[in-house]
């Protein structure tokens, strides 16, 4: 009987020690799951913004005329006090919009130096068969550009923290200078610290 008690005690001790082990538990989760780890800008905020912007832009008259306008993403200003990768939001939107087949994007503002180097290599280096080399002066000009900003208002009182994000995106006609489409997404997040700990 005493031996069984010692055995049970040892097993319990092993469970206790393994529970206190310092190595973190890593698991893979779904990228689609809603995340509320902190009030800081997170993956769900990015997905919510991309979803709203893409749905709105695909339904905008400028993209429903049957033509496939050429766009470029100019800039999304981060006016919050957090470090945000605003390009991650516009990249997510760009992938979805491209897959719709209703719009084209120019890469000029992102990889223009690389494209010019490649064009020069193909046309001037003498290494490339002229019959297969790309020709200078045939890049397609953009019809519209996207620009926007993200702002936030943060407040904290006692145990409650409140964060409000507002993401605004505009589509500008380069020729006319007119804003042809604009959309905004507001997000409110609240956190309440526990009474004990936290």
């Amino acid at each position, binding site marked *: 009987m005493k031996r069984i008690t010692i055995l049970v005690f040892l097993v319990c001790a092993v469970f206790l020690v393994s529970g206190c082990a310092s190595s973190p538990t890593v698991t893979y989760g779904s990228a689609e*799951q*809603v995340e*509320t*780890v902190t009030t800081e800008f997170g993956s769900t905020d990015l997905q919510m913004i991309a*979803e709203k912007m893409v749905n709105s832009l695909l*339904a905008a008259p400028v993209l429903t005329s*049957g033509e496939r306008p050429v766009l470029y993403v100019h800039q999304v200003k981060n006016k919050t006090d957090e470090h945000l990768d605003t390009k991650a939001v516009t990249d997510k939107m760009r*992938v979805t919009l491209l*897959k719709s087949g*209703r719009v084209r994007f120019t890469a000029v503002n992102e990889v223009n130096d690389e494209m010019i180097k490649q064009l020069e290599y193909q046309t001037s280096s003498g290494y490339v068969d002229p019959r297969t080399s790309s020709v200078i002066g045939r890049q397609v000009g953009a019809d519209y550009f996207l620009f926007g900003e993200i702002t936030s208002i943060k407040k904290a009182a006692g145990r409650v923290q409140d964060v409000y994000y507002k993401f605004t995106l505009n589509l500008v006609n380069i020729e006319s200078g007119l804003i042809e489409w604009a959309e905004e997404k507001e997000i409110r997040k609240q956190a309440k610290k526990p009474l004990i700990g936290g």
Partner: protein
Amino acid sequence: MARRWIMLMLTAVFLAACAGTAPNVLHVQAGPGGLSSKKEEINDRGLARRIAFGEVSIRPLDLGSSMEAQVVLQNTSSRDVVFEYRFIWYDAAGFELSTVTSWIPAGLSGKEARGFKSTAPGPNAVSFRCMVRNLRPLTDTGS
């Protein structure tokens, strides 16, 4: 004996509460011309008692080659309800077309009804599913 049954029942309730319930799904067949058919798949009766699928509207886009859908979700209870939803679009062969398929948190006030919209990701979309489930966030406790 009775105490043992109560303990068993409580454990079962506890485990059921921890387990993820399948979402309620509205299957919709549609084209730019309008709605063809819709079918509700109720997996979470508790949620269905609070959030009901309402009217489905289809609007043609891009000279009739694409469409925008709106599903009205109605909070049938008198209390505020928070939930998650998502739309997933499919082509005629049943292939998934949506690239943004993440769950979106949303809320409805007591008795409130609101339209939730989604635009077909491409001209080959012929059906979509509107899914609703209880809020199930990834939190700092990992639950």
